[in-house]
Each structure stands twice: as C-alpha cells, then as structure tokens.
C-alpha cells in the first residue's frame, strides 16, 4: 500500500537530486492533444519520464504540449537543446522513446531515421 510517509522519503531524495541538477538543461516535449493521445503519446511520455528517472539524467525536463499541426505523424517528441536547437521525432512508440533516451539524451547522437525530416523524405 502506497502511503504519504513514502512520499516524504521521496521528497528528501528529490531535494538531493534537484540540488545536483544543472540549470538551463534540455527539454523533452511530447505532443499530448487528441491526435497524440489516440496515437499512443501517453505511453511514450511515461517511458520517457521513467527512463529519465532510472538513468538519473540531471539536465532533462520532460513536459507536454498541445497539437503541433502534423497529426498524421503523432506521437511527436521534440527535444529542445539549451541553445534553442530543436530535433523533432515522429511516429514514436515505447521502443523508439527508449532508443532516443539512450542515443540522443545520453550519448548526444541524433536518431536521424526517426526525425520528421526522414519521415517527410519517405513520403
């Protein structure tokens, strides 16, 4: 049974985590409008949050946004670098989300084949 006492312990650990975090980190934004949700964005987002937590990525914030306007390519995940550069990943799923965490967020290599550029070249 989950209890509020457990949440207190999490608070203490989270405080330590937050202290070690760098300002101005990277943002991971998941499209979570009707189109994204129907295409599977919720599980993509939960995988991203879970991976960021277990890998203790200190400079990554996962958040969500509405419809970006290319509903046919949902679920869409955008990674915004501290310098403002955006990488847009499309047609995501749980496995692709894990791959983006490892290759892009941890190792700094963009997964070119999952980007919007690659998807549009295919069409």
């Amino acid at each position, binding site marked *: 049974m989950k209890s509020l006492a457990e949440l207190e312990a999490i608070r203490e650990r989270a405080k330590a985590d937050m202290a070690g975090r760098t300002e101005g980190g990277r943002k991971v934004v998941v499209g979570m409008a009707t189109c994204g949700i129907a295409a599977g964005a919720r599980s993509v987002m939960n995988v991203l*949050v879970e991976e960021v937590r277990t890998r203790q990525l200190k400079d990554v914030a996962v958040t969500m946004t509405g419809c970006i306007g290319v509903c046919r390519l949902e679920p869409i995940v955008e990674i915004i670098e501290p310098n403002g550069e955006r990488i847009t990943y499309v047609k995501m799923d749980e496995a692709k989300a894990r791959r983006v965490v490892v290759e892009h967020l941890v190792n700094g290599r963009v997964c070119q084949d999952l980007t919007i550029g690659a998807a549009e070249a295919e069409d």
Partner: protein
Amino acid sequence: MHDLSLHLLDIVQNSIKAQARLVQVFIAGDEATDQLTLTVVDDGKGMSPDQLALASDPFYTTRTTRSVGLGLPLLKELCEMTGGRLLLESQPGQGTRLEARMSLSSIDRPPLGDLGATWSVILSAAGSDIDFDLQMCSNGRQRMMQTLELRQVLGDVPLGEPAVLSWIRDFVAEMQQEIFGGIHR
C-alpha cells in the same frame, strides 16, 4: 481512443487551457442503476452559450494549428453508443462542468484503462498554480487524492519530479484497483 483513461487525459487538458485553478475529477460506478459517470468540474474561464453549443461539434475548435476538435465529439459519441449521454454546463468566468454518463454493462463501454498513467502525465505538466482532485467511488467504497495534500507533504519539491510522478502513478493505480477491481473495469 482505447479506453476511458485516455479520454480523461484529453478532456482534462481543456480545463488546463481554460486556466482553471482547481480541476475536480469524479469517477463513479453504480451497479444498481447500471451507470458509470465521469465528471470533470473546473473553475476556468468557461464558455459562452455560443461556444457551449458548438463544443461537441467536430468542426469547431479554438485552436489554430488545425481546424478540427475531436476531444469532446469522440467522448459524446462513446457515451451515446452505450445508451448514455454527455452533459456540458458552463458559465463564462465561472467554469465548466462535464458529465459523461455511460451504461456500466454496455458492451460498447470501454474499460477504465490505466488511470495511474493518465494521472502521472497530467501532473507532469501541472504548474504550481493548478490543483487536481481525483475521486473514485463504486458500490459504497470511496477514495480521493488531492494534489493540495500531496504538495503539503512535498514542500518545494514539484509534482513533476520523476520520482514523485512514479509514486503518483502507483498510488492512483492502487486506488483504481481498490474501488473498481481489475483492469477490465
């Protein structure tokens, strides 16, 4: 949309966009009357009578990125398929109340789905200026989770912290299991 938890994730965002300070979600099952009711009440900016009349029209939306808005129409269709209905009330400046009534036993009623996953996603993006109540009840059992109470425990640690979200996800899943039983409800 495969289940009700996905619809909930979708429609709660209407309340967030309406700048609500408090969003109350109430999920009630009643076998005696064969009803499952999903109610979302917010104190956001509300809708004018004209907007309210158009809210469940798929070709009406306030967004500018595309010209259709399917969130409410899809939920309305679902309710009606089970023999229920979607009720919407709104007052500009006061807020909006949505009540989705479904027949509990209808073959067309989707399962509740993973409410824990929905709640962790909603709270991941919730600013410190918005609170959520989640209440579930069925056959005399009742449980509630309030972000206000969680925030009192967490102090300056935000709800969006990954470790906190993980706890919330499990906590809501436990609530759901206790009130509604297995994943099919």
